[in-house]
């Protein structure tokens, strides 16, 4: 069961070489724009044809270049939510939703009523797409994709066309809706919050290749690669070197520490997890790495402070950025010495 993709395709010098298996119910395909995410989705839906490889959905072959199988998009039973929703502008909400249904079928009416209620579109049935807000359009597009009961639902950047102030509420609404809809889903996004909130399994795509796959929590906790950690929002990344056989140094910040864990040979970077760094006026350590720092910059944002700090004993080094919540910020005494407390679990080793 599940989705299995192993495809290759060349387009205008861009090489797509994707290989993954969905092991969760909600799969996130994560990557920067232009990494080949959308093309992968289009291959799954059958609206683009890969050069070679195979695609399996619940053990059904959708595409297999060796066996010369290429199931038409019409017969794949895949629900697809397009980035711009792709509602038919000349049809009203009701007509848009029921366009895929058999007119003569008796069930059509009850099904339509059901889905319109589920998606809270009751007063909008006769409206045209251009008369709807972005969120309403999204609900119509989703209703249209779901009404035929697809085997898998594909969401292509579902929130990228929405204003940011609408986004958070709509995200919650959509996720609630999709929870009630108990089917396999694949979502493409370049937004790490969305992946983290929505997907239990994820693959990271970069330049047409899968570089990492795993449960979402694992991938975020241990991104393994320098470029993945950048995509996932790690701000503090430094080169890492052995100073002696048991002492490591993060060269960018001049922070060295003793280690008892054995590192793989190809580990050459270290990243810091924001949540496991503390800043205060206490020089005492209870096992964590303590570094005396000077504050170089403070930016106040709505919910917290962004601080840039530098290692006092390594002034030519670069700054570490960290978020400090407003209560903790108040407790900081800037006339005293300031210390950074980096817990061991904050350290993420990267290739």
């Amino acid at each position, binding site marked *: 069961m599940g989705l299995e993709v192993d495809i290759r395709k060349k387009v205008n010098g861009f090489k797509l070489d994707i290989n993954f298996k969905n092991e969760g119910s909600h799969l996130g395909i994560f990557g920067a724009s232009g990494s080949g995410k959308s093309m992968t989705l*289009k291959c799954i*839906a*059958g*609206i683009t044809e890969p050069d070679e490889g195979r695609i399996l959905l619940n053990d059904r072959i959708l595409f297999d270049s060796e066996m010369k199988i290429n199931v*038409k*998009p*019409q*017969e*794949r*039973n*895949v*629900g*697809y939510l*397009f*980035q*711009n*929703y*792709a*509602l*038919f*502008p*000349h049809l009203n909400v009701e007509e848009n939703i029921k*366009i*895929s249904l058999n007119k003569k079928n008796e069930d059509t009416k009850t099904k339509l009523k059901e889905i319109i209620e589920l998606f809270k579109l009751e007063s909008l049935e006769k409206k045209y*797409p*251009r008369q709807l807000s972005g969120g309403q*359009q999204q609900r119509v597009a989703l209703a*249209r*994709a779901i009404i*035929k009961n697809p085997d898998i639902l594909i969401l292509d950047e579902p929130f990228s066309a929405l204003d940011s102030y609408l986004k958070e509420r709509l995200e919650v609404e959509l996720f609630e809706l999709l929870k009630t809809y108990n089917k396999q889903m694949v979502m493409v996004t370049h937004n790490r919050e969305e992946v983290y909130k929505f997907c239990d399994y994820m693959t990271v795509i970069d330049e047409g290749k899968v570089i990492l796959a795993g449960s979402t929590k694992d991938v975020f906790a241990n991104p393994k690669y320098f470029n993945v950690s950048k995509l996932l929002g790690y701000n503090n990344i430094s080169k890492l070197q052995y100073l002696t056989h048991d002492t490591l140094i993060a060269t960018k910040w001049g922070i060295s520490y003793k280690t008892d864990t054995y590192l793989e040979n190809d580990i050459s970077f270290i990243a810091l997890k924001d949540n496991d760094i503390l800043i205060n006026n206490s020089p005492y350590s209870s096992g964590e790495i303590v570094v005396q720092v000077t504050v170089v910059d403070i930016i106040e944002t709505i919910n917290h402070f962004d601080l840039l700090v530098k290692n006092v004993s390594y002034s030519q080094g670069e700054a570490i950025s960290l978020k400090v919540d407003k209560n903790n910020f108040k407790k900081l005494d800037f006339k005293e010495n300031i210390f950074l407390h980096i817990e061991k679990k904050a350290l993420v080793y990267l290739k």
Partner: protein
Amino acid sequence: MEISPILISLRTASVATFFTFIFGIFAAKLVLDIKSERIKAILDTIFTIPLVLPPTVIGFLLLLVFGVKRPIGRFLLEFMGIRIVFSWQATVLAAFVIAFPLMYRTAMGAFEQIDENLIMAARTLGMSESSIFFRIMLPLASPGILGGAILSFARSLGEFGATAMIAGNIENKTRTLPLAIYSEVAAGNMKQASYYVAVVLAISFIVILLMNYFGRKPIVKDK
């Protein structure tokens, strides 16, 4: 004023437009669906070339095909009893060939403007290709297609060169408005000619007005 040229012209232009409308849309869809870029370019050239050829050249080519001594012309005459040359049907044929590229090209342009995602969405929704064409593509392209039809009608109405060559200038049969104007001027009847000119001006004016009306309506695109 003899009224028959007006009637003949309107009848010819209407029937010719009916055919250009159907075949123009069909040809546009055909070329649009062809995957090979080379075949696409060749077909597009064939469908468009009457637009740039002098009408007399088209009349000449039509004579080559439909002349009674030519294979196709002879076949039509001997087996079906149809004689194209110098018949009223010839005025329709000439107008059709001349106006066809206008319909074809505007329909093509209208189809190409449709957001590709809409077509792909329709496919993932399980709609058949013909259903997509009739329920999605045609309605969305309709402003452009209507504009093209009006343009073809106007062009059919003004057709002179090819008509004269293949249909001749037979009073009450193949003498359309442009031919009537030519004949009257040639005979020195400037006053008669000016009546016809006024009629043509009036019809053309209305046609352009209609076209602007339909042309200004934007093709509804997805936001």
